[in-house]
């Protein structure tokens, strides 16, 4: 049992928003109750159609996606996705995204009424939508606004999901902390582009998309480390985690937990395998608890 920002997690390995649907899709492959927790695909107030295809393209050791937050909106989420999550024994953390500050607050308010929801991850870092999204998360002032509004709207633990597309991650991290976030998660995807040299068009439906996967891991580890030295609230590390060793890198850099994203697509057993690999490392090194690793990076 791990406590993170007031959320009781089964273990420190969660699944990242947008890479695990609302959980159901992976129930075929393993017992979801073995996960540390589930972070849902971003939910918006109104249904979002999403971006035109192609929505994904592979790049060296990574992929660019431009899903555009496709989802059926809060109401449908509460009706169809939440009941499934309610049946699980692990905490459901709902990731929210809005076009305006008010939308974020409204989402937080309504989700707080659901006892299945154990925390809210605030996506202020999605690079794939025209309004809102990343725009909020690259500026400390708007970060404060959104997180502050969500803070007022809910008593649930609030996790601010930050964008790596900034000059100085410590500024948005501090902004999130000072406006009441209980934890920070990072990184979301890096804005990227790939061009088809035959058609001369983008290889995804919109011009740019978000780069994820092992390619960005070294950037994510660096940012987690920088953020962890700037704030006191816990950090959830995300970015290209494929093995237990990758996860441990994030712990050492200062993360208190990790989210597995793109790796789910490659190996449905990824989160559980990663957890087993972490435990094997702990056993081999006779470390009694993984929390001894948190921030144990030696300068």
């Amino acid at each position, binding site marked *: 049992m791990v406590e993170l920002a007031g959320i009781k997690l089964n273990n420190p390995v969660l699944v990242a928003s947008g890479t695990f649907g609302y959980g159901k899709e992976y129930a075929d492959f393993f017992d979801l109750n073995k996960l540390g927790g589930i972070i849902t695909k971003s939910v918006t107030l109104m249904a979002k159609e999403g971006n035109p*295809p192609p929505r994904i393209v592979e790049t060296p050791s990574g992929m660019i996606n431009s899903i555009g937050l496709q989802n059926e909106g809060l109401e449908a989420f509460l009706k169809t996705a939440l009941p499934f999550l309610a049946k699980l024994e692990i905490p459901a953390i709902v990731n929210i995204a809005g076009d305006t500050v008010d939308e974020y607050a409204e989402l937080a308010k309504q989700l707080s009424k659901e006892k299945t929801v154990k925390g809210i991850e605030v996506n202020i870092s999605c690079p794939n939508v025209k309004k809102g999204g990343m725009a909020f998360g690259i500026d400390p002032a708007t970060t404060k606004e959104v997180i502050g509004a969500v803070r007022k709207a809910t008593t649930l633990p609030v996790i601010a999901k930050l964008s790596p597309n900034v000059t100085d991650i410590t500024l948005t991290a501090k902004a999130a902390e000072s406006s009441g976030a209980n934890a920070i998660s990072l990184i979301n995807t890096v804005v990227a582009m790939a061009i088809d040299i035959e058609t001369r068009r983008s290889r995804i439906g919109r011009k740019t998309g978000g780069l994820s996967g092992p390619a960005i891991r070294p950037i994510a580890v660096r940012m987690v480390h920088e953020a962890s030295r700037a704030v006191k609230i816990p950090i959830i590390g995300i970015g290209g985690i494929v093995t237990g060793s990758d996860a441990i890198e994030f712990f050492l850099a200062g993360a208190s937990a990790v989210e597995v994203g793109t790796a789910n697509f490659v190996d*449905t057993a990824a989160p559980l395998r990663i957890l087993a690999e972490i435990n094997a490392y702990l056993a081999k090194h006779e470390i009694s608890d993984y929390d001894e690793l948190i921030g144990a990076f030696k300068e």
Partner: protein
Amino acid sequence: MATQEQCQVLDQTQVGPRYFKLTLKSLYISTNAEPGQFVNVRVDSGTEPLLRRPISLHKINREDQTFELLYEVLGQGTELLSKVIIGSKLDVLGPLGSGFKFDPEKKIAILVGGGMGVAPLLPLAQQLKTLGGRAVYALAGARDKSCLLCETDFAELANEKVVATDDGSHGRRGYVSDLLLDLLNNTVEARHYPQTTIYACGPKGMLKAVAEIALQRQIDCQVSLEEKMACGVGACLGCAVMTTGGYKTVCKDGPVFNAREISW
């Protein structure tokens, strides 16, 4: 229900210039797979290429507990797949997606395959034969003779089989959609249209042409689509295709769709 399994490679045979047939062992997949479904194959244990590759089920041998894939080497992923050696294990996710549907009222089945599109039509032909009571027409098109696949297989399973090549190097010269028009004009008469289903798989342009022909004549038509995929299980929403009901996933809602549903 799908599984992620390390399947033993029983056979890998080159069947054309860049075409390969791969036979894999899996009780689960061979037992549960339906024609039109696919598997998502991990071609590399490292990170390059990162994602799995979707390949249709080409033969489903329930007795042997095996299944076959027929694929073309196009890029890095299928290149690696073609180097997989007999006796090794391959990480396979499947069976995935929603396959072809069968309506007992439809007594005529027209199978239209373009290029690699014939791959999922073979287990379909097999199934139709097993279901029985149907006239099955198999139409296959390809760039040239060397690209025409499974001709003899179809000859065995279909009541009639016609082939075309773009360059006329085998069968008729022209597109497979021409064959379809011919068939609909000459053999399957208009009064049969209500009892007919067209099953099509191939390049997008061909599918669009086939869908138009079918829709004009109000013939039931099922098309198997392709889209770049990440998860293959409906979780990432990466494989979206626009339908009359908004974006749907090719990997879960499809790959087989009613042609009427698709916003071409």
